[in-house]
């Protein structure tokens, strides 16, 4: 067979890939071609290059827009956006894949899904469904919560394990529901209504699912779900996809969690830390009370001390002291007075001594007494001849008889 003959030559992967590349580059249609499609799986790599897929309802083509080409891009491409892209379709030899090397790109209008999202968002916002003041507060200590989600996904596993880790004694009710597909929005909405009817004592309901494409998360952008969230008497926490995914449900819900595990972290308190907080307060309470007791005891003690001080016994002791004090002073004063008088006496004695007749005798005078009356003889008339007289001199007496007298 002729085909066998032609294929006898053996090619390397590189040979054949280069041949394919040649086919692509020799086709003028694939050069400077303009393609219209919806952006999907858009990734803005840290290198500055953009990687995404352009698709329509049947096909898709892998695209790359290098940093040098996308620098002047006047908009931020997002998933769901309709764009018009110009460039070459070539083979990326390393992976053996053809891709669209975009050199220019313009916005051709938002994708249908995106437009629907924006329209519903504006409508519900205008109706007041997103109003902050309508949002219900979640209790700090939930006792009983429900989770409407797929019973087999990673989302429910994360929510349950994180919830039980943070607060072990809690009642979780899993309400299985489809979370993607045509029925999902209606099912979730009906479950919310059902729970409001049969379990009104629920602390809150988490609705959510793990990450996915915009189409997979679409149920959470449906109007009927938004309205049932708004009407729910039980607070609703939405936990859809990844942190960057925003859905209508997020806007209406009483609390928006970035992810399902984030929902558990935001709504379930850590019991351990609450207990620590409580213990701290309790010991502070005890400490304060002891302190007050101590203060009161101290002031009580002060009053008793004061009372003791005021006691009559104390007064008496004080009087005793005054008494001692006075008697001491009395003694002292008395001694002083005596001392002064002694001095005066001494002075008078000296004076008296100088004035005494004996002092005169010392100077050679004598005193004559008439005996035996011992009267001082002051004139001649007192004595007669032969009267006995005694003459007092300095060192003794001389007895004598009057031998004669003469008046002058």
């Amino acid at each position: 067979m002729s085909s066998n003959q032609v294929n006898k030559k053996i090619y390397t992967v590189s040979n054949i890939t280069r041949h394919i590349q040649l086919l692509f580059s020799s086709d003028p249609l694939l050069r400077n071609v303009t393609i219209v499609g919806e952006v999907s799986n858009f990734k803005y790599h840290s290198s500055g290059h953009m990687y995404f897929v352009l698709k329509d309802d049947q096909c898709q083509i892998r695209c790359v827009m290098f940093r040098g080409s996308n620098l002047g891009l006047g908009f931020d491409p997002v998933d769901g956006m309709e764009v018009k892209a110009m460039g070459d379709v070539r083979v990326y030899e390393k992976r053996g894949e053809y891709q669209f090397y975009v050199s220019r790109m313009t916005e051709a209008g938002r994708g249908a899904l995106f437009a629907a999202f924006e329209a519903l968002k504006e409508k519900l916002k205008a109706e007041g469904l997103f109003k902050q003041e309508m949002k219900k507060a979640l209790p700090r200590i939930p006792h009983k919560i429900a989770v409407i989600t797929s019973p087999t996904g990673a989302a429910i596993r994360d929510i349950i394990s994180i919830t039980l880790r943070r607060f072990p004694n809690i009642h979780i009710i899993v309400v299985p529901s489809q979370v993607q597909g045509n029925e999902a929005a209606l099912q979730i909405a009906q479950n919310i209504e059902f729970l409001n009817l049969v379990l009104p004592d629920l602390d809150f309901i988490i609705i959510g699912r793990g990450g996915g494409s915009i189409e997979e998360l679409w149920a959470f952008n449906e109007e009927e779900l938004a309205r049932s969230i708004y009407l729910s008497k039980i607070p609703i926490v939405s936990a859809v996809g990844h942190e960057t995914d925003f859905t209508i449900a997020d806007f209406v819900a009483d609390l928006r969690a970035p992810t399902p595990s984030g929902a558990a972290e935001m709504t379930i308190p850590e019991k351990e830390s609450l207990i620590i907080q409580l213990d701290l307060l309790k010991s502070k309470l005890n400490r304060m009370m002891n302190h007050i007791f101590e203060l009161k005891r101290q002031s009580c003690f002060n009053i008793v001390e004061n009372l003791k001080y005021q006691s009559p016994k104390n007064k008496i002791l004080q009087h005793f002291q005054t008494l001692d004090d006075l008697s001491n002073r009395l003694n002292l004063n008395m001694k002083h007075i005596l001392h002064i008088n002694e001095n005066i006496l001494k002075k008078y004695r000296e004076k008296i001594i100088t004035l005494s007749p004996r002092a005169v005798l010392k100077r050679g005078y004598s005193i004559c007494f008439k005996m035996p009356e011992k009267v001082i003889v002051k004139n001649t008339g007192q004595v007669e001849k032969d009267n006995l007289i005694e003459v007092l001199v300095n060192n003794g007496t001389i007895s004598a008889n009057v031998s004669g007298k003469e008046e002058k």
Partner: protein
Amino acid sequence: MTAKKKKDEDISFENSLKKLEEIVEELEKGELSLDEALKLYEEGMQFSDKCLEKLNESKQKVEKLTKEGNKKYHTEPFSMQNNEMDEKE
């Protein structure tokens, strides 16, 4: 049962904790008579007990709810074992 629960709801954990904090602050000021302080202290201990009670009120239960008609449902223990992932993470 539900009536009792509703009544308990009035004294929430937050309120009890806040009351406890206020009482500690009041005692800290130290301007109270001994009688007043004792009364507050007792109240504080009650609030603290109440908080702890709230924390331990519920029991761990993980259940799966299945609807049975308009207002009827039944629950059964929910097990996370052998779960297959049916959605992308």
